[in-house]
């Protein structure tokens, strides 16, 4: 008998195995939804797929009379803008700070403990402070995303850079590199692929903070919409929105993987 741990699926059967649970869930949902509707035709909890298409379709085809925008498009672009700006600020700062903390012992002693302390503050707890200081506009939502993910990103990246083999840093110096050159030519290029995987890891958290901020104070956005229609128990809108957010997250994750493989081929060569 071959051990279970040594049984690998073939390429085709692997895909099949991966799709199977999703199909089962869909099937189960369809059955449950049909059963509830058979008993009560106005059931709101488990809408049928045609109901979802109809309700959400209205958000895509009809414009909002007060703003003149198509709701789904307006929500998506507002959320993605906030998320994009937040991610850009957090990633840029993490790169700069991670680099100096990781390579310069004096800065590490100065800022390392501070970053450690900030990283343990639950970001949602400071949301009221953000609303008070930045107001209820875009800035406070972007700030929550930034504050929510940046400390962990800085910590992870600086630790990674500090753990680059000492041999490389020494070698660079024997080749005439000064501090700036060690940072820009040894640490930075090796930090970039790591930065991409850190962004991938933090993407989920970034969405959480974005939706939380939008749920509390916003007039447009994917999170805003979900929490708005919750009052009417509109599962037929919430479920497609959740699916749409998930799809966006998957696309972003995939794009980051592709970017890393194309831009940093050397990092994906596999172990030596």
């Amino acid at each position, binding site marked *: 008998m071959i051990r279970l741990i040594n049984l690998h699926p073939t390429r085709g059967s692997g895909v099949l195995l991966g799709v199977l649970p999703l199909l089962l869930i869909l099937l189960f949902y369809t059955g449950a939804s049909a059963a509830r509707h058979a008993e009560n035709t106005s059931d709101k909890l488990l809408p049928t797929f045609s109901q979802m298409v109809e309700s959400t379709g209205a958000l895509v085809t009809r414009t909002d009379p007060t703003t003149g925008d198509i709701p789904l498009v307006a929500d998506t672009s507002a959320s993605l803008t906030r998320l994009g700006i937040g991610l850009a600020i957090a990633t840029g700062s993490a790169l700069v700070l991670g680099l100096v903390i990781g390579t310069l012992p004096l800065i590490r002693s100065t800022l390392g403990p501070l970053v450690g302390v900030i990283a343990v503050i639950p970001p949602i707890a400071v949301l009221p402070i953000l609303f008070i200081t930045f107001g209820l506009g875009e800035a406070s939502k972007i700030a929550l995303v930034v504050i929510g993910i940046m400390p962990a990103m800085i910590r992870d990246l600086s630790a990674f850079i500090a753990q680059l083999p000492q041999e490389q840093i020494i070698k660079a110096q024997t080749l005439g590199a000064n501090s700036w050159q060690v940072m820009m030519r040894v640490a930075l*290029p090796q930090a970039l692929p790591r930065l991409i995987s850190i962004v991938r890891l933090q993407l989920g958290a970034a969405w959480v903070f974005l939706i939380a901020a939008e749920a509390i104070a916003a007039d447009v956005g994917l999170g805003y919409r979900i929490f708005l229609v919750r009052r009417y128990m509109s599962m037929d809108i919430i479920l497609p929105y959740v699916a749409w957010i998930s799809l966006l997250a998957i696309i972003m994750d995939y794009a980051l993987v592709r970017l890393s493989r194309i831009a940093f081929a*050397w990092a994906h060569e596999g172990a030596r």
Partner: protein
Amino acid sequence: MALMSFRNVWVEYGDKIVLERVSLDIHEGSFVSIIGPSGAGKSTFLRLALGQEGPTKGEVLLGGEPLRPEPGPDRGVVFQRYSVFPHLTVLQNVLFGSECAQAPFLGKLFGSKRRQAREESAEMLASVGLGDSLNVYPAQLSGGMQQRLAIAQALIKRPRVLLLDEPFGALDPGIRMDMHALVTDVWKAHGLTILMVTHDLKEAFALGTRVMAFDKRRHDPQAPHRFGATAVYDVTLDRKEGANRPSESVPDAALPALGSR
């Protein structure tokens, strides 16, 4: 005059004494093999020569001047591992040294400078047998080829001293022999001074013009960390410097000092 001098050098970490009373001169053009039991302080000695750390007491001189406790381009180094940059191609790894000196901010050379640096690097790579692998990444090279690359990378800076810490420790025996021929050639061709740490006695005697063994002279069974190691055995081999011939034999006189472990 000696190229490098160690004057009554001590290295201590906390209350642990690693090296004590190390006093020796390294002559220009010599090939010094350093042997000794694990933990004797061979790498520590090399780190002193490199300037990676300074001595607790005593002084290290290079060309008569006290050594700054910082690595610099006059001392090249090859470690057992991680000596090359994984994110640069073979050619870029060797170009790194020229770029640091000539393009301090951008790290990129242009025009004739660029052409000249590339030619010089490619030539150096050809001389260590990597002429056909200029554009691959180190991860695609075998261990032996990675060490060849590390040597070429160090040589491009024309260092006065080349420091090797178990450079062939991770290589297969057959490849080691090729590498021995390579370092010997490089040593002669560039008129280098080499300090090489090795665990292989044969290697030490085959390559070196001088063999040093580091070990503790005294042992305190209650507090073994309170005595440091020093060069307990130091012999200049009867061989004209710069005219090395491969030799497989270990002189009998060496055995009492080395055989105890």
